[in-house]
């Protein structure tokens, strides 16, 4: 655990300091994310518009085109990162993430099935496309439930859960690919876009639904997080200080799954955020709980906002999904973590 070793030297530093630094970077990134695009919007213009002024065209671009994307990216990035934080703490394994539990791939399968079942001959959807997030959430929750049912009484063992998660994820992924490929063309494009993670088409009303679902979940998650055992406490010692790890673990797994499910339901299968953000947060602020959660969420939000910004600026006019950027950055980071770890981690 070289991370914790290097951290011990800096532990005397108040975790509030790096948290505030991250918050500052977050703010600058937001200005950039709203500012950049086909037309540059200066920070003054943005402030002006947000305070209710500005020209009509500026208001349209900022409030209706750019803000929804940015806000959706913030909310979902933060939710996924929180989910990852919970999973990594409860499994005491920094390789755990919502993706590994099958949540993301389950959601993908849900969306693809939804598109396949409700499309008619003419390739059009027979139900409003706004039901798509529901399909994603159902897919994600079915995937988590399956992981738990299948692992049965081994559900409290981390490794078992991860293995079943990987298995479910692999199967869901295989089926998803197949359904995309046999589906009609329009449907395939629509699904492929969503699958790779795309924040570009989101509207304020969807953000409202997302918040309505997320706020209670985040509150429950926060309440559960108060009882997270210290990272270095093993099963026996946890029991001796009165924690019922079995029930508690399952509750945390479900809440973490729900957090990711809601987020990916709206912004698509964004990979690796839930893995990297909590890990980087620990490098920055050490093991302090509140600072860890807040920093994780800010970093997750930043990553998704940044990925979306890269997509908008670098690949315009084609909309390469933001999820591909997070995967291209995240996968090597994950591999690096794997290589660096000693055998104790898996």
């Amino acid at each position: 655990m070289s991370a914790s070793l290097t951290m011990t030297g800096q532990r005397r530093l108040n975790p509030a300091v790096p948290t505030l630094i991250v918050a500052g970077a977050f703010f600058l990134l937001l200005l950039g994310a709203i500012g950049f695009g086909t037309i540059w919007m200066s920070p003054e213009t943005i402030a002006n518009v947000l305070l209710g002024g500005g020209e009509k065209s500026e208001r349209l671009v900022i409030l209706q085109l750019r803000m929804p994307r940015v806000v959706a990216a913030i909310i979902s990035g933060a939710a996924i990162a929180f989910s990852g934080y919970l999973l990594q703490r409860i499994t005491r394994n920094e390789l755990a993430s919502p993706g590994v539990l099958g949540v993301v791939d389950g959601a993908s399968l849900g969306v693809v099935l939804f598109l396949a079942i409700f499309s008619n001959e003419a390739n059009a959807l027979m139900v409003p496309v706004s039901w798509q997030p529901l399909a994603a959430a159902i897919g994600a929750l079915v995937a988590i439930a399956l992981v738990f049912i299948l692992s049965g009484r081994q559900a409290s063992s981390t490794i078992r859960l991860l293995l079943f998660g990987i298995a479910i994820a692999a199967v869901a992924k295989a089926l998803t690919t197949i359904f995309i490929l046999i589906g009609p063309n329009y449907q395939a494009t629509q699904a492929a876009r969503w699958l790779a993670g795309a924040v570009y088409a989101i509207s304020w009303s969807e953000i409202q639904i997302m918040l309505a679902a997320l706020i209670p979940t985040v509150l429950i998650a926060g309440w559960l997080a108060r009882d997270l055992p210290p990272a270095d406490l093993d099963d026996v010692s946890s029991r001796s200080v009165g924690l019922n790890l079995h029930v508690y673990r399952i509750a945390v797994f479900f809440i973490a799954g729900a957090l990711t499910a809601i987020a990916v339901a709206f912004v698509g299968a964004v990979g690796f955020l839930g893995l990297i953000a909590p890990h980087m947060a620990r490098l920055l602020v050490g093991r302090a709980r509140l600072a860890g959660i807040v920093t994780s969420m800010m970093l997750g939000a930043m990553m998704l906002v940044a990925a979306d910004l890269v997509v908008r600026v670098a690949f315009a006019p084609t909309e390469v999904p933001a999820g591909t950027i997070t995967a291209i950055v995240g996968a090597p980071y994950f591999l690096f973590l794997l290589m660096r770890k000693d055998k104790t981690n898996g």
Partner: protein
Amino acid sequence: MNLTVNINIESIHVASALSVPRPISLSRPSRVQVYVGLALLLALSMLASLTLGYKVYSLDQVFTALFAHDGSETSVVIAGLRLPRALIAPLTGAALGMAGVLVQTLSRNRIASPDTLGLNAGASLAVVVAGIVFGVQSLAGLAMAASLGAFVTAIVVFGIAAGAGGLSPLKIVLVGVTFASLSHAFVEVLLTSNEAMLQQLLFWLSGAFVDRPIGLFYTALPVVLVGGIVAVGLSRALDALQADDATAQGLGVPLGLVRALAFVAVAILTGAAISMAGPVAFVGLVVPHAARRLVGLRHIHQLPAAALFGAVYATLADVAARFVIYPVEAPVGAVTAVVGAITLVVLLRRRAA
């Protein structure tokens, strides 16, 4: 951790299988019976592949089409559409079956397969890169790219997993899965920024035996044969490798050389399969388990049994795919993915118990 314990128990089994040449098991049919039975099954399933489908042809018609081609429409359909499938499906299944055995032995991991280790994804990425970046058009060129992709991925995945401190089953699968999502992301970027190529390359990305030119079979056949021969040639060393490194070294096995050759074989076999049919899901996962059940752990038997069983399995899956949602044809990958899923869950549960 549970896993390590399980593996040790497994390796004890292997060790005893090595010292006692013929594991005693009354219910198990003799190996000759197994081989003959599988060969018969293969012949039958290939025949089924020729006759059954959207239209059912009589044996007579099939015979005419194959050996006394009369230019009739029936003959054209049988020789031009059914025959390539009936040849490509078993060859792909055999290649993936043997590749699966090798991968599971190399990683000492019963849930490893060309899919879970990311080899399929790597091969797909290589095909897309060759098509878009280097403008490769020919089937042979793309097939080469697939093999190369599988090979490079195998080396990278095993290299990273080994660098990560031992080839623990979870770790190697994690590396493979991660590598697969990385490859998928790159494929996604390349295809969204170049939609014209999408249609052309779907062929390689989907995994199916429909509409494949028979030329692919002739290109891949010698490749699969070479891969199979290399694998069988390594079988004694692989038996030892199956236990653990110390045992293998004690028996005088040159570990590095054997691993390297086995990698080449895996890459050749997976690449050949993907060049014919694209990534057909989980064949390489399911087949080795069946082979071990039928003939035991020794590779000299495991590999041929896996080849035969894989051939039968892929052919039957291909036939089944024609009837699952009749009259429309389901993709064979959906059939193998469902079977693979059930197998995977059963394996995990059994190991957990």
